[in-house]
């Protein structure tokens, strides 16, 4: 570009482009942070979704200068370097050398990629005073919140094609719907009875694979009451697309009342359930 700009009569394209890029970036970065940012998923229902939302806003904001550079350059090139109708189509002169530009490009992109990887990793381990930002961490979580082991434990059981939930602190009762109390640390233990599923509680910001014979742990604390969608996020057979449910975040007293009702209602089958375990290997008693 500097070679082009040096030609007699040519405007200084590098300077012009840099000014346009800077203006576009100066406009779009605040727009991303304060206008678009608040609407970026997954919302603010839980500590996990807040952490995920913040990451999404940071990544989108950092991507904005890059996006503006590409778009601005594209527009600038279309306006300024477009061939006339009568001009023959020909390639431009080759660009050789330019170590300063190359080094700058490598340094900037490497800094962005490594920096964002570090930011993402640190956030995954420590975000919002919690850990794991809602992802399944296996049976021995690397990033544990302070409440691990003392939180309300809820086992999520995937089976073709239905989610059920066990509450070991309440006699091991199993329920067809998921309810958790607000402002309470919850520790999910996700497993499967048949094939691999994936427990995705969208508005909770929790996603953890449900693997037969395995215990996958995820943590969440919901800050406000409301409903959330539950989907299976792993192709698991004929009715995978229908393996949906709706969960609820309720007040503490409402949860106490609900779980007591579940214990009473399902008492006859609770007695038949196997002892609570972090996983249940899918061997049938018999076939035929």
């Amino acid at each position: 570009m500097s070679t082009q700009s040096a030609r007699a009569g040519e405007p200084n394209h590098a300077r012009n482009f840099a000014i346009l890029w800077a203006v576009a970036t100066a406009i779009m970065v605040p727009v991303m942070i304060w206008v678009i940012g608040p609407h970026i998923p997954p919302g603010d229902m839980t500590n996990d979704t807040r952490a995920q939302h913040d990451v999404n806003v940071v990544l989108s904001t950092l991507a904005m200068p890059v996006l503006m550079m590409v778009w601005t350059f594209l527009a600038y090139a279309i306006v300024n370097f477009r061939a006339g109708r009568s001009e023959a189509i020909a390639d431009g002169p080759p660009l050789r050398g330019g170590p300063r530009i190359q080094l700058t490009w490598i340094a900037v992109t490497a800094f962005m990629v490594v920096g964002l990887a570090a930011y993402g990793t640190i956030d995954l381990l420590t975000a919002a005073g919690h850990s794991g930002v809602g992802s399944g961490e296996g049976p021995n979580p690397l990033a544990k919140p302070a409440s691990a082991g003392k939180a309300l434990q809820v086992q999520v059981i995937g089976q073709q094609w239905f989610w059920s939930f066990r509450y070991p602190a309440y006699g091991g009762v199993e329920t067809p719907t998921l309810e958790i109390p607000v402002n309470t640390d919850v520790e999910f233990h996700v497993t499967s009875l048949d094939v691999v599923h994936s427990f995705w509680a969208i508005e909770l910001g929790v996603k953890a694979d449900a693997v037969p014979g395995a215990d996958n742990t995820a943590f969440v604390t919901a800050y406000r009451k409301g409903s959330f969608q539950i989907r299976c996020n792993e192709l698991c057979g004929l009715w995978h697309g229908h393996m949906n449910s709706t969960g609820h975040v309720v007040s503490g007293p409402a949860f106490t009342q609900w779980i007591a009702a579940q214990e009473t209602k399902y008492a006859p089958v609770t007695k038949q359930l196997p002892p609570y375990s972090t996983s249940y290997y899918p061997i049938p008693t018999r076939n035929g």
Partner: protein
Amino acid sequence: MRARLLGAVATLAVLIGFVVVYFIFILEEAPPAVSAVVNGSTAEVTLQTVASYGRHPYPDWVSYLARDPSGKWQHSTIIHVPAGTQVVHVTLYEYDTSTGLRNPFFAYVRGTVGGTMSVNGAPVSYVNAASPAHTFTMPDLNVNVPLPGVNANAKNQCSVAPCNTSEAHNTITFSFRTPKPGNYRFQCIVPCALGFLYGFGGPMQTIGYMDGMIEVS
């Protein structure tokens, strides 16, 4: 250059042809819809579960069958229910022997009118988890009905569909409220697919066998 282009176009056309034929076969294999018998505000649905269908293409697969308004058994699990009805009343003849539930939670009757089913005339709200041969489970409506299997030592067991009531069976009846218009899947949740890993796969994954749809329209 032109020859290579023509070759590429011809190859693409053949591939598209294979895909089209494949989907035509799938559509042709879809079971026909069987209409419920409407009796006032009630839609009567009659089903049976059999240990083996006995016919092409999968004679040894377990299956549901549905009885059409003329009284003929159809190898179908697509049931049409008129939207104007209030209640769907199901009569189910269970001819298979017990397999047992993988998850005993499904031993509980849920989502039916009164929260119960009738097994051979007796009201039942839950069963022993080892007794079901199959279940009639509609997760979207939170309906679950475990279907106790016939005694493994029973004489006169049915071997090939359609079975008839002179053969060993359990008669299960239950009702559920007709939902708003839409398609509602039902399935068996017992791992009853003999010959498949852990009893899954095959008929457990196939509409017309152990999966079906209640179409309310």
